[in-house]
């Protein structure tokens, strides 16, 4: 095993981690702030990638294309939000319905093709995996760090405003929120829109980074997003109390996830087994609080058994 091979792969792992970290912030908004598991993201990340790719190919400026991807992502969230609030469909099912519908929509956007190339040679892109080791301003790591810091800053501000606070309250306690005059349905829809806008934005960055948009690029996105959220929480819950730092922890969580993936691949894991491994890891971390509580409860009764909490 050649350690140089691993080191060489690290910059790419970090870049991917940063992109998926942005996506995971969308997941954090629904899963942690709104307290809803939104499965729209598997579709909306690909929608973001497809929209940006097609627009750039048609001569749009990259920033305009990113903005368009964000807006279209918000529309995806709007659909899920309406399914859930207006039509009363359970949140998870609403997300699955939108995700399924988006598969067809994404194929349409891509001109009935499964994928579309977006070469950095032909178009002015914001970032590309080609520059991942370049020591210039075009290095995607640098660009993505700027993006991440900007996004965290904007969200820190937003969730501190009256509207943002009412959205956090909606996630924390729907009954209390309504009793305090908060339109919870509106806030649920808004949160889903914001989250999917961010997810689609990450998709637009991912398509540029990898040089193509693909209908399947979002498969399992929710699980990667959850992995990032949970790894971030497990590693930094004790030190990061501030909201901005919690968001930062999500991005770092995604980076750790991709670095670990890189390491296990280097250790010889078959790429085809990656999703299986990811699902297992996320399942273990999701189960951890439950089992920890059980273990502690058991210890209360049995007393005297040693071991750490």
């Amino acid at each position, binding site marked *: 095993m050649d350690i140089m091979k691993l080191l060489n792969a690290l910059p790419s792992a970090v870049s991917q981690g940063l992109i998926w970290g942005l996506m995971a912030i969308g997941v954090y908004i629904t899963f942690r702030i709104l307290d809803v598991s939104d499965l729209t993201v598997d579709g909306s990340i690909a929608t973001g990638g497809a929209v940006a790719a097609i627009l750039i190919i048609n001569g749009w400026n990259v920033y305009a294309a990113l903005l368009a991807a964000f807006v279209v992502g918000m529309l995806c969230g709007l659909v899920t939000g309406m399914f859930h609030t207006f039509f009363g469909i359970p949140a998870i099912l609403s997300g699955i319905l939108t995700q399924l519908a988006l598969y067809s929509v994404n194929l349409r956007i891509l001109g009935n093709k499964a994928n579309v190339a977006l070469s950095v040679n032909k178009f002015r892109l914001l970032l590309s995996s080609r520059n991942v080791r370049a020591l210039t301003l075009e290095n995607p790591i640098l660009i993505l760090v700027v993006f991440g810091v900007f996004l965290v800053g904007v969200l820190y501000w*937003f969730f*501190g*405003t*009256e*509207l*943002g*606070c*009412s959205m*956090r*309250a909606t996630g*924390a*306690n729907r*009954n*209390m*929120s*309504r*009793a*305090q*005059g*908060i*339109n*919870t349905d509106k806030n649920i829809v808004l949160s889903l829109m914001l989250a999917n806008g961010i997810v689609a934005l990450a998709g637009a960055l991912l398509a540029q980074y990898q040089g193509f948009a693909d209908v399947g690029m979002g498969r399992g996105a929710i699980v990667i997003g959850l992995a990032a959220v949970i790894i971030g929480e497990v590693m930094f819950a004790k030190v990061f109390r501030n909201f901005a730092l919690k968001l930062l922890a999500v991005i770092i969580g995604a980076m750790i996830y991709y670095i670990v993936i890189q390491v296990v691949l280097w250790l010889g894991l078959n790429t085809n087994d990656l999703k299986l491994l990811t699902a297992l890891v996320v399942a273990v971390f999701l189960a951890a609080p439950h089992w920890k509580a059980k273990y502690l409860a058991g210890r209360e009764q049995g007393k005297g058994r040693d071991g750490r909490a």
Partner: protein
Amino acid sequence: MTAVLKINHIAKTFNPGTITEKKALTDVHLHLEPGDFVTVIGGNGAGKSTMLNAVAGVFPVDHGTISIDGVDVTHLPEHKRAAYLGRVFQDPMTGTAATMNIEENMALAMRRGEKRGLRWGISAMEREMYREQLSKLGLGLENRMSSKVGLLSGGQRQALTLLMATMRTPKLLLLDEHTAALDPKTAAKVLELSEMIIAKQKLTAMMITHNMRDAIAMGNRLIMMHEGRIVVDVRGEHKASLTREDLMGLFEKAAGKELDGDKLLLS
């Protein structure tokens, strides 16, 4: 004077047309004058909570109308009616957002009935005001304003919820067994606070209780519900001189059967 609350012949049946169909309110008619403090008693399932929830707009009613302070709210959604109401619930978990801190919870309540835009969610001036109001509760919460509400005890949470419900003077305060989940000493303290706030701000209020002694001792009016109707309504002088025995007699006359004091009204 116009009535603060007009409940005009409302009816509510849950799950109509199914085997779980339940007539929770058959024909409830009640008008409250400004400053009325009504205690509400009645057995389990009598419809007390359903009546309060109908006023709050938790669900639409089948018949009748409800108006608050002259405004017909029958078709307003819950979050819009909140502008007129202060509410405290039986479960201390219901009234506050556990994952948000004390001052954030208060700032949410302070904006009840207002548009929530992109201004900052809490100002330094507000913070000082909250500190002062919390200190009046005498629970030391003024020194824990940035603690998560989830860390507070049930009694502390209920006192905070009460403060949040009344900080912006509501047209009507709705208390649904808000001390039932507390230990006797804490319950007494929260009741005392409620009475003090209602008197000081001259609030119009409805308080559901299972404690007959509290129902008799507090407020200027008492109603008793039975099978979805108001069967007893006493006020003024009459209410002031009311005894437990009077109440049982009134109930028997109205409901046409003997009242099992211990089962129906835990005192």
